[in-house]
């Protein structure tokens, strides 16, 4: 056994090289590099903290004078100093959750098609087209929705549901059906978050090891059975993550929603009625906010939106970790 001395010699050499590097000229570069990285890592959380602190300070007067009424009051009446966020908060949640519900099956279907079923030649073009949806600016979606989606809802969908299906008395479809509505906002959000969910889901599915697929195939599973039994169970945590990413985007989306939701301070009880979201409220009112309490109430609204997003993200992390552990 003449082998051992050789590796130990090599280790000695590399150890020597390492220590000379620590003492040598490069150590300044190393230190600069380390400092830069550490600074970058600290700046980002600091920014988040800064934003939160500024919002908290600015929102304080409204919180102090209105208290819980900020969250429980359903009236938003600037001249009478009533700033109830409940309709906008519920509108935000309703439009986002609705959009997520509609987008998830479509996005997962598209992801499964691209990753598992499409002929190899079709995969890239279809994936590129889906990704392309994500590149369209928000305001363009809003314009499209305003010019195409809302008139279609008003002319065809709403009369069909209320008259032909005779569902006009159902609260979910109640109210004056003139187009801009919770439904319009949810639909445009659906299209906007679709590419994000689909892209992440596709990556997650493609990351499932080939050995798992072959295990199912070799036991006589059809392609569908393989997807159901080998691919999806392995992708579960990542798919939940994809949904949460979509939900996060939907919660904060401003421009397109503001253009089609109707911007009315109504509790979102009917799909056909106008509603409001916090993001739209901020976009509409911040520029012309009158009086310090109004500004402060809007800051409180921003704080609520931030809190909702953070809670959703935290919930998502918890859910992903839990599904990981269940495996």
């Amino acid at each position, binding site marked *: 056994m003449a082998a051992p001395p050789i590796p130990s010699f090599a280790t000695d050499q590399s150890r020597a090289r390492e220590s000379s590097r620590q003492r040598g000229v490069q150590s300044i570069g190393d230190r600069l590099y380390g400092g830069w990285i550490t600074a970058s890592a600290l700046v980002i959380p600091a920014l988040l903290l800064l934003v939160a602190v500024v919002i908290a300070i600015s929102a304080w007067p409204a919180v102090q004078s209105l208290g819980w009424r900020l969250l429980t009051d359903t009236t938003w009446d600037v001249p009478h100093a009533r700033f109830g966020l409940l309709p906008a908060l519920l509108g935000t949640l309703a439009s986002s959750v609705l959009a997520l519900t509609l987008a998830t099956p479509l996005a997962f279907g598209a992801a499964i098609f691209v990753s598992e079923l499409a002929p190899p030649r079709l995969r890239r073009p279809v994936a590129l087209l889906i990704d392309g949806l994500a590149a369209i600016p928000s305001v363009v979606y809003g314009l499209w929705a305003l010019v195409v989606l809302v008139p279609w809802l008003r002319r065809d969908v709403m009369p069909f549901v209320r008259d032909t299906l005779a569902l006009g008395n159902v609260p979910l479809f109640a109210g004056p059906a003139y187009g801009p509505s919770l439904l319009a906002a949810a639909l445009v959000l659906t299209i906007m978050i679709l590419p994000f969910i689909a892209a992440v889901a596709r990556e997650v599915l493609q990351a499932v090891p080939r*050995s*798992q697929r*072959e*295990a199912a195939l*070799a*036991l*006589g599973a059809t392609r569908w059975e393989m997807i159901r*039994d080998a691919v999806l169970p*392995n992708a579960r945590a990542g798919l939940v993550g994809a949904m949460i990413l979509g939900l996060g985007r939907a919660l904060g989306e401003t421009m397109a929603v503001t253009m089609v939701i109707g911007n009315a301070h109504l509790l979102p009880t009917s799909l056909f009625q106008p509603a409001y979201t916090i993001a739209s409220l901020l976009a509409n009112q911040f520029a012309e906010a009158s009086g310090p309490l109004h500004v402060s109430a809007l800051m409180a609204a921003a704080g609520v939106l931030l809190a909702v997003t953070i809670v959703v993200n935290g919930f998502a992390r918890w859910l992903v970790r839990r599904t990981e552990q269940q495996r």
Partner: protein
Amino acid sequence: MTAPLQDASLADAHVRLDAWSVWFASTHALDAVSLVVPRGGVTALIGPSGCGKSTVLRSINRLDDGQAGLRVTGRILLDNVDIHDASIDPASLRRRIGMVFQRSNPFRRSILENVVYGPRLHGLATGDALAAVAERALRRAALWEEVKDRLGEPATSLSGGQQQRLCIARALANEPDVLLLDEPTSALDPGATQRIEELLYDLRTDVTIVIVTHNLQQAARVSDHTAFLLDGRLVEVDATRRLFTSPRDPRTEAYITGRFG
């Protein structure tokens, strides 16, 4: 069917490759391989990396179907029926031909759920009968005694060798006629390897086994017939004892004496 002589008569051929060629895009993976796998016993496929032995194995259960750029010519017969015949459904073909891979690949489910996956899929058993099927398969894979009290635990809690035997049990639960093994012990330690080799010895009486191995000693130990492949061609196939003691082809001799590969 002329070049490499094979003394197994065609009458008891269980699997027969007839001038079987495979291309992946422009790569010619197998070139007119003609090979008879006799019924019962163990047939080993040996040869250097990239010689096409895994491709032979994966051709027999059509696992590469649908791979981009796959092109094949020739025939593969299972019990004298062409496995590419329109009447053959690949999924039910794979029910009859079990496969075990180089790295154990249990599903992320319990031990029991892994074993009953195939029978449940194909409706071979339901309810209480499933438990009996699982026990029989685990006994045949010599794993029952080690796992009978922990069937509900995740399959990943088993050791590497146990996981590989679980994969064998999972394949056996489908009651296959043929069992394909693709270097099943190359990731295992000598002890676990020996257990699997003993297992193959016991299984040979009622299942036709085809094993791909890098390990020449293993081929010599476990197989009745050995086929030597080189660069996608079948060089020689013979009774294992004869192929290892008096190879007819100089390339076979060079390989088994360790001059290349």
